[in-house]
């Protein structure tokens, strides 16, 4: 026994140490969660269309590899909304209004694209910035309500999804320079205002993904290295302690929500300003009273990424990857609805990573009898104060 103890304490790279640091358990849990999701997804496919399940499943797992451009292209908007939700979450705020902010961002970007006459070289940049501002406004308002009137941001931001969507639909339908009523969509955006493409054939992947990843890294730096990040996380972890330390909670709530909104808005701008594979065409906005799904997908992305900016970058790419492969499963005869279910199951189980963490450790404890019980999941004060 003594010898064993020494091994545990001395060797930096042994399993127990890694588990203690959370690396191994986190790796294991994500792995097992995804794996379990894939297995159950496979069973769904097996039930739906048994003969083609293997082929279809292979498309889901590896199909994305042949469509790397699209993987990154479709990851862009959900990465931005994921960062938005995750960033607010770091402060203990649940930004469920990413959809509304996203839509506002699209509108502001479209407005600049159509209504402002700017030099080609900066037009798209200004349109993106406008999108950021639009989202910021739409995020800041729930923040202000939260800070000064203590109105729960979940309620306000949900309502702002609807307000934003109807407002944008109304504004667009009333503007003949932007709207083509025959087609129930906006005009094609001039090529000069579209985001520069990365030139990968058969894909619209553009500079947006690179900017989005850079923004994710920037957020990581803000959260880890700055006073603002320090205050923000402190407030998220323990509101009372941050108040005790004299942090300006109200101001920080508004700033956080504004930034979160801006991120979603920028996502909207990246989405709508994406280049089209067809010359002369573009992305279009259809004012058909539908709330942008990118906002809600952002919640899944943020949760899967544990609200960590770098984690979110990977989770957005992962989700996009699985979805791209999923689309190919229709080659095996799967109906789009079945594919959606399979993908939802996979993502759903992947989000179980934290539970897996506990389950795996519990398994190890039971079978090897001397593993560390997953103390880090029990939020129990007198257990924490392990003497």
């Amino acid at each position, binding site marked *: 026994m003594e010898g064993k103890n020494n091994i545990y304490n001395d060797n930096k790279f042994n399993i127990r140490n890694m588990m203690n*640091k959370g*690396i191994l358990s*986190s*790796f294991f849990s*994500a*792995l097992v969660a*995804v*794996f379990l999701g894939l297995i159950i997804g496979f069973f769904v496919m097996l039930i739906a269309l048994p003969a083609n399940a*293997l*082929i279809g*499943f*292979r498309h889901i*797992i*590896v199909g994305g*590899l042949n469509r790397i451009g*699209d993987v990154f292209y*479709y990851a862009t908007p959900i990465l931005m909304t994921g960062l938005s939700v995750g960033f607010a979450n770091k402060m203990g705020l649940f930004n469920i209004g990413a959809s509304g902010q996203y839509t506002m961002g699209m509108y502001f970007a479209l407005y600049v694209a159509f209504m402002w006459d700017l030099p080609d070289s900066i037009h798209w940049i200004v349109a993106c910035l406008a999108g950021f501002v639009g989202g910021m406004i739409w995020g800041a308002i729930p923040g202000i309500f939260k800070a000064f009137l203590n109105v729960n941001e979940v309620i306000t931001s949900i309502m702002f999804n609807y307000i934003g969507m109807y407002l944008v639909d109304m504004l667009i*339908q*009333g*503007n*003949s*320079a932007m*709207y083509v*009523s*025959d*087609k*129930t969509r906006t005009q*094609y955006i001039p090529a000069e205002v579209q985001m520069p493409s990365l030139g990968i054939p*058969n894909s*619209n992947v553009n500079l947006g993904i690179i900017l989005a990843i850079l923004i994710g890294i920037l957020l990581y730096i803000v959260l880890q290295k700055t006073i603002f990040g320090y205050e923000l996380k402190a407030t998220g972890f323990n509101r009372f302690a941050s108040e005790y330390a004299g942090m300006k909670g109200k101001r920080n709530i508004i700033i956080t929500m504004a930034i979160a909104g801006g991120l979603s808005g920028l996502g909207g701008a990246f989405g709508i300003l994406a280049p*089209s*594979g*067809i*010359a*002369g*065409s*573009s*992305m*279009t906005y*259809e004012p*058909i*009273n*539908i709330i942008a799904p990118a906002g809600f997908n952002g919640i899944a992305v943020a949760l899967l*990424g544990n609200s*960590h900016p*770098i*984690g979110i970058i*990977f*989770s957005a790419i*992962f989700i996009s990857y699985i*979805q*791209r492969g999923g*689309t190919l499963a*229709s*080659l*095996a*005869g799967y*109906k*789009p609805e079945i594919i959606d279910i399979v993908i939802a199951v996979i993502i759903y189980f992947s989000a179980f*990573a934290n539970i897996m963490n506990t389950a795996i450790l519990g398994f190890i404890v039971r079978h090897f009898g001397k593993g560390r019980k997953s103390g880090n999941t029990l939020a129990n004060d007198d257990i924490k104060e392990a003497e």
Partner: protein
Amino acid sequence: MKKLVSITLVMVLLAISLTGCGGADGNQSSSESYEIVLITDKGNIDDKSFNQGSWEGVVEFATKEGISHHYIKPEEASDAGYLAAIDLAVQGGAKVIVTPGFLFEVPIFEAQSKYPDVKFILLDGAPHDPDYTDFTIKENVASIMYAEEQSGYLAGYAAVMDGMTKLGFMGGMAVPAVQAFGYGYLQGAEDAAKELGLPDGSIEVIYHYTGNFEENDTNKATARTMYQEGVEVIFACGGSVGKSVMSAASEAGAKVIGVDVDQRYDSETVITSATKGLAASVIQVLESIYKTDSWDQYGGKTTYFNAANDGVGLPTEVIGDENADAFDRFEQFTREQYEEIYAKLVDGTITPIRSIEVADPSGYATAEELTEGLNLVKVKVTTR
């Protein structure tokens, strides 16, 4: 950082499973092939409208003939997204691709050159380039349009001939098809009033666009208000908007006119439907490919489906009952009257106006524009 590590490892796992599966499955990349493929637009396959109607046609024909068929949902509702779905369908072995709706005009324009060996059936639209400068329809594309104004005309005519004087119209969004239905509806009401010798302004019509194609509470409330104001029948002309209207009608004990397909089976309140033969036209074109070998009849041009070729009309048969009267929900209007007026549409005696000038960018016409443009005298129209 630990998430980074973990997800990277997951990616590695996925890569490993790639090689693993590849070895196990061997060369199966071709999968199965589907000969007739429908690509949905932004709506779902059960939208009670274009997607559903044309899919029903595909299923009916392909099942009968034993041809493999399938539908695909695009990843993104954009021109590029639709084109990508077409690419995917072709990759899956499609020989005939059915695309319902005008949203496919630009993507089909691209695809017709990209895939000269694939036949495209484009419903409710004609291919053109993004700049509206090139309207070339290649030999492999059949562009199908419908004379919605005739169908709407019949509905309006029937309602007034049945004795109703307060009518409602609830369109989805002001796209050409919906506008044509509405304009035809007003003209049909006008002509029926003239025929009955009613005084000027004796027929009141409330004309409204909902701005969406959804079933929702707002739409239901709008319909309920109309019924409370005395409207006897509402022509619900916008996909799922119809469900909201039917629900309001059954509460108010009032009537509804359905659209696109015969909706009498959805609700007792539906007295008739202004149909266009989505399924029928798809079947006709498919027959020209597979049975009669007469693709030339449709390929390379735009074909209008109207009264003359049975492409539009009110339903005359009840499914599952040959002896039933499809006009049984009218009080006075009969099948004979219908056939009389239908004949006039067929022979061209009556040609309803399909489009008028509308100033508003949203495409919502004002009451004046409607009255002027459609020469309404007996009908007094108000918009909201």
